[in-house]
């Protein structure tokens, strides 16, 4: 058990170090950090002084060591473009993105599971087939078009929902949330639908496939033979056994949801990390890009770690074995 946890942890740390090396190489070798931070008319002495202060004259391994040390403390340097510490920018924008991503995942899970179960039970039904065909069209529909379509319908034509921003947010310490005000909740609806849609189709197809598999097994036939009501068979017996892969995929996808939020945040001018990252890419603001990369990597590593541990808790067979679970 402890060996298993330690191995997962060690893997996580190696991945983080590898990503840190990529981030550091970007920081160090793309463009000239000094030229990016000072104006055109800065003198050579000023440039030299800045390079010294940033530690750019140190040997490479030492710079990397410092870089990792700073990362561990949450220091990502100064944004080239905004001249503010990247850490402050991140803290300012993390709540918007996390709130959006969590709600989207919840939306995708709830509706994805419901629709998946429905399409599996009513496999030959008209509605179920319609849902499946729609999901195929949904896959071909780029996220930003879904967002624009929603804006056109609910903001331009019907004027029910705001088309951009977070609305009024409430501060809870350093965290901000839109859930406590009316305008905040209204602002969340369309971005959540847009971001959650792709996950929804994914989860729906997964649940459907797993359910069809489960419904063919002997214990379901036996349950039918015992005269257990069909509803109870579907939800209490079959669905329960599909939950492990579904929760795994949903968990592992959380990092992707955060990354896909880049598009959603741009469409809805959502003040989150994704919008910050896009600006950084446009203006080659390397420290912000590097910090975003580290953030997404951290989310990936943490969700992977969480899922590994969850497997351990869910699947008793793993407890005896020393081998890592196959994913």
């Amino acid at each position, binding site marked *: 058990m402890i060996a298993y946890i330690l191995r997962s942890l060690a893997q996580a740390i190696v991945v983080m170090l590898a990503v840190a090396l990529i981030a550091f190489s970007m920081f160090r070798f793309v463009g000239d950090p000094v030229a990016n931070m000072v104006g055109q008319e800065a003198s050579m002495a000023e440039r030299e002084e800045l390079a010294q202060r940033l530690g750019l004259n140190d040997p490479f391994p030492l710079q990397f060591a410092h870089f990792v040390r700073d990362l561990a403390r949450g220091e990502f340097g100064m944004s080239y473009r905004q001249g503010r510490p990247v850490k402050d920018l991140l803290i300012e924008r993390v709540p918007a993105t996390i709130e959006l991503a969590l709600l989207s995942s919840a939306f995708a899970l709830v509706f994805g599971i419901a629709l998946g179960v429905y399409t599996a039970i009513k496999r030959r039904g008209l509605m179920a087939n319609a849902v499946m065909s729609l999901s195929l069209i949904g896959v*071909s529909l780029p996220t930003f078009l879904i967002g624009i379509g929603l804006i056109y319908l609910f903001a331009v034509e019907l004027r029910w929902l705001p088309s951009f921003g977070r609305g009024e947010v409430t501060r809870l310490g350093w965290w901000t949330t839109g859930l406590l005000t009316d305008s905040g909740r209204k602002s969340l609806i369309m971005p959540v639908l847009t971001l959650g849609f792709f996950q929804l189709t994914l989860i729906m197809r997964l649940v459907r496939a797993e359910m069809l598999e489960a419904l063919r097994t002997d214990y379901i036939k036996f349950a039918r033979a015992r005269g257990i009501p069909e509803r109870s068979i579907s939800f209490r017996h079959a669905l329960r056994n599909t939950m492990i892969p579904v929760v795994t995929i949903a968990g592992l996808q959380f990092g992707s949801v955060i*990354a896909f939020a880049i598009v959603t945040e741009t469409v809805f001018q959502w003040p989150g990390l994704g919008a910050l990252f896009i600006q950084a*890419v446009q203006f080659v603001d390397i420290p912000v890009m590097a910090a975003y990369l580290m953030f*997404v990597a951290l989310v990936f590593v943490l969700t992977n770690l969480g899922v590994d541990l969850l497997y351990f808790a869910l699947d008793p067979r793993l407890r005896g074995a020393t081998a890592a679970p196959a994913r």
Partner: protein
Amino acid sequence: MRAPTARQEGLGARLWRAWDSDIAWSFRHSPVAIAAALVVTILLLGAAFASLIAPQNAFDAASLNLMDGFTRPGEASATGRVFLLGSDDQGRDVFSAILYGSRVSLLVGFASVIFSIAIGVTLGLISGYLGGRTDAVIMRVADIQLSFPAILIALLVFGVARGLIAPQYHENAAIGVLIVAIGLSNWAAYARTVRGSTLVEKNKDYVMSARVMGRPAFAIMGQHVLPNVIGPVLVIATINLALAIIAESTLSFLGVGVPPTQPSLGTLIRVGQQFLFSGEWWILFYPALDLVLLALSINLLGDWLRDALNPKLR
């Protein structure tokens, strides 16, 4: 003595064989595939012959007249011109803009797929054929590529390339950078598939005999193994083409793709979005429709191809 090869058959016989093949049979009996192929063909021809079909060279500023701006589809503008799908704020014909725009989108889509096939197939062959440590390293890198969302990789590559290329070259390099960025974010699927089939093929007798004859490893991979592992690559390539076109339009929509002087479908949608609130829906709607039709038909073709090449799945 050589057995008769396809080259010695007459043209008629060859055409008949193509018509009579399993794939063609399955195609003839799938209305969805026929419809999808028709749509893709029309859109491809439209893009290829944009300069002949388009009523206007949409990106030659001299041909635009501001008086024509915001003309509704099918109505006459202030100067009396009629635009099939309407005109945008600068009096540009939306229909022409779509033809020229889909040309850029398709160019980036095809080129990036070819680029990722080149990388993926090469690495997959090497990985499967050589095995050992090389295999482990390549597959680990492929794992990393697969576990990060393609859009994030493409954006990072794009940002880094922008930092490395001097600002005055940004516009000219944009399409090349996009192709590399999208290509680099999609190669791992090919590498995995090719590696898998290579592992099977490399133990077969023909590879053994080539080895005994003393052919170098790279010749065996390229001339003997490659033709036998390329089949599944085509299926992935079709589906990836749709993904690549969507990725290109997404990047352009985000404002980090091709410059507005050579707009793709994504750029047109980005521009059109500004006019959504003032009611000029056609500037946005038609490019978006073109993009969705293109992606959907390519996806449907990919689905059909997968089933046709793999009768077991049916």
